[in-house]
């Protein structure tokens, strides 16, 4: 097996898991858990950016999506309400 195929396998697995994380984030009723799922998706996308050879994007995406957006959304949740009603 060449290294190229290995990289592509990693890419495929990472993007598959990210789809599952997106699905769970959408169907979840607890909004804190939805934020955590979206953080998982951000982490997986970071790996994907790394594999797609985009360090510039990674450098701006890590602080924004891993460090800031969960915090901002949690502030809004803590100020408002946590549960999504049926």
């Amino acid at each position, binding site marked *: 097996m060449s*290294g190229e195929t290995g990289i592509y396998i990693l890419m*495929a697995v990472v993007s598959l898991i990210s789809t599952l994380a997106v699905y769970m984030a959408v169907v979840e009723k607890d909004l804190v858990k939805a934020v955590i799922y979206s953080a998982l998706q951000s982490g997986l996308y970071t790996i994907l950016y790394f594999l797609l050879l985009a360090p*510039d994007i990674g450098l701006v995406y890590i602080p924004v999506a891993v460090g800031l957006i969960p915090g901002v959304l949690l502030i809004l949740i803590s100020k408002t309400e946590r549960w999504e009603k049926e």
Partner: protein
Amino acid sequence: MEIINTYLLSVVLASLLANFVISLYAIFFKPHYIKKIIALTIFSDTANTFAIFIGYRRWINQNPSKVPVLTDLNPRAVEEFAKLAVDPLPQALVLTAIVIGLAVILFLVFLGWILYSHYKTLDMREIRRLRG
């Protein structure tokens, strides 16, 4: 071997398409405001990833494709760099899009707080009902 590589790359493309569909569904049909914001972040991230994926370059004769940053400053390195590096244009466009995305999310969060202090709920169906 080539067809396996193509299949693996198309798994990436298919999952990105699935992310598009799921997050668009959530933006339009999920009633809660915060869920809409979360779906919006996912949507914009997926769009950005899609752009970078389009700009990716496959390996040439077992030579790994390169980061669009030059490491050696001499004429031969420049020629080789132009042959092997991935597309820098989508990366440059996505770079600003991510920062603007965060600013827009911040605006939406402010708006959500104002909405909540007016209506005491963030469920869009209830807000619509309260407006009468």
